[in-house]
Structures are given as C-alpha cells and as structure tokens.
C-alpha cells in the first residue's frame, strides 16, 4: 500500500453517489465494507434473530435488516447518551450509566452493531460497555465493531447507512466530543475478552472492521 493510500482513500473505494440515491444526500461518501456481509451471514441461519443497534436510528437500516433477516431490532442510541453526559459534564458517571443502560437479558441478542462507538469512549466507559455487550450477546452471536486508525480532527460522529450488503454510506453529524485514543488491536481484543475475533479487516479508508463471535 502506497503512502497516498494511507493518507486518503482511493477513488475506487470512495464512490460518491449521484443525487437521489439511497437517503438523498449526494455528498455522503460510500465505502465498501467487508465485515457486514459476514455479520449478516452469521444471522441468516437464525430463526427470528434479535439485533441490538447502538447507533442513532437509521430508518433504511431498520428496513434493510427487517427485510434481510426478519428480525427484532433494539435501537439504543448510545451516541445520544454520550452527548448528553458530555454536555452535562457528567462523563465520570457514564460507566455506571452504561451498567444499567441495557434492559436485555443475558444471552438475549444474536447480533450487535457497535459501529465505531468504542472510539468515542474513555477507557472505563469502553470497558463497561464491552462487559454489557458480552453479557447480552448469545453464545455463537456476532458483534460488529469499527475502529479508527487515525485521530480525527473534529468532533463528529458518523451514521453508517447501509446502501447494500457490501457498501456503507458514511454520514457525519456534529458531536459533543471527538474520537478519543486510537486503540491498538491487542487492546480491542482485551476489551472483548470473552469473545473471539472471527474476522478483521483494515480498509483503505483506515477503518478497521472487526467481527467478534461469542464462543458457543
């Protein structure tokens, strides 16, 4: 991979769609995803799967998963919770908040869409979130996480809008804080200590996609 590839995505990976596509925002870049199809594969064999989405509600994603999997989706927008704590100056209470945040029972969820949430959390909050996600995930269930490889300049979150099984539209929106420390792979693995890494991809846009599975 050349230096320019590391600094900026190749045009072939950054496909800006014409107006009127998907959600109608022409400026949103579309990137390929390697882990999403594998995540879907783990769920297609399940009967009536249950998903947990930690991102903001994206209507087209809900429709996509409903049509593909015929599933039940819990939408728990943790980014909004984080924003609220940052603005209220109560970030030190966020780990305790996360401990009580998820009403799901142990082993209830077949798949978790964590997106890039971990990047925005302090270490204690990230560990508590990981603990809760490992708790609710069913044995043989899958967790999809994205992790940045370079520090971000501004405070913005990203909505990952599913275009199709292998493409995600990245739509950024204002956030109360930016990405925190960039976690090396070994720290990510330690964070989800009871899960095993099933697949891991470093994309040309510097995003790491990791698919975890809970041992059966």
């Amino acid at each position, binding site marked *: 991979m050349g230096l320019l590839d590391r600094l900026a995505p190749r045009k072939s990976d950054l496909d800006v769609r014409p107006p009127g596509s998907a*959600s109608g925002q022409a400026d949103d870049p579309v990137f390929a995803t390697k882990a999403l199809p594998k995540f879907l594969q783990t769920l297609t064999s399940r009967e*009536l799967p249950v998903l947990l989405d930690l991102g903001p*509600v*994206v*209507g087209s994603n*809900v*429709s996509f*998963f*409903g*049509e593909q999997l*015929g*599933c*039940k*989706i*819990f*939408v728990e*927008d943790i980014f909004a919770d984080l924003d609220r704590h940052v603005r209220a100056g109560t970030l030190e209470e966020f780990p305790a908040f996360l401990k009580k945040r998820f009403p799901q029972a142990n082993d209830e969820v077949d798949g978790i869409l964590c997106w890039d949430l971990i990047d925005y959390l302090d270490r204690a909050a990230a560990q508590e979130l990981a603990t809760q996600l490992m708790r609710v995930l069913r044995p043989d269930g899958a967790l999809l996480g994205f992790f940045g490889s370079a520090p971000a300049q501004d405070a913005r979150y990203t909505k990952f809008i599913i275009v199709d099984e292998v493409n995600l539209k990245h739509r950024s929106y204002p956030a109360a804080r930016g990405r925190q420390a960039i976690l090396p792979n070994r720290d990510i693995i330690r964070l989800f200590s009871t899960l095993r890494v099933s697949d891991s991809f470093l994309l040309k846009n510097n995003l790491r996609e990791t698919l975890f599975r809970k041992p059966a």
Partner: protein
Amino acid sequence: MEKDIVNIGKSVVIKGELNGSEDLTIEGHVEGTIQLKEHVLTIGPNGRIKAQVFAKSVIVLGEVTGNVTASDKVDIRDNGSVDGDIVSPRVAIAEGAHFRGSVDMQRKGAAATPEKGKPAAAAATPQQGQPAAGAPQRVGA
C-alpha cells in the same frame, strides 16, 4: 366510491378504548387503546397519542408514546415521533423522525389485536372539562 376517513380534531381529547372499522386521522389527544384492525390510522402533525395502537397500517406525523402493532406497515414520517416498541412486517422511519424503542419485523405474522390481559396504557376515566370516554369509542362505525 368515496373512501370514508374520520378525523378527530385538534381540540378533542379521548381517554379510553377507541375502536373503528374505517380509516382514521387523529389530530387531537388520545390516551388508552386504539384498535383499527383492518384500517389505516394516521396520527396527524398535531396528534398526541399515549396509547397501545393496533391497526393495519399506522402513519405517524405527530407523537406516539406506547407500543404500535400493525399487520401491514408502520410509517414514521419526517418530524413524527414514536417512543415505544413497534411490531410490524414493514417499517419505514424517515430521516427527521424520532424513534426510541425496538422494532420487531420477525416473520411470524403480526396480530393486529391486543393481547388478552394486557392493560391499556392509560386508565379509561373521563377528566373534568374533557369529553367523557370511559366506554369504548366507536368511530364512525
């Protein structure tokens, strides 16, 4: 043939059970249970619902607090808001909509009827100065 659509206006407040056999648009306030088994329920931009909702299709432009069950589709439009769980084979949530809860699109056939023994979201008691509605409200039927 002209299709019947009944409107509940902005100033109307209903507390209790609302049953109907034609399409209904709500611009007022409803608390309790709404059942339109084979018909379309539209919560208008001014509609404020605190209820369990059962219908064929539900279109939300106002605010709904409570669980929504539709045998065909739930459509939360721009500026529409739902706080509650949705059960429906098809769900559309617009970009500017608010939603908090779960979406159950499991392919097991959503029943557009309330489960027996489950109480309505609010007590069916009339309030002073507001239209009494302790008994079921039959809309246009």
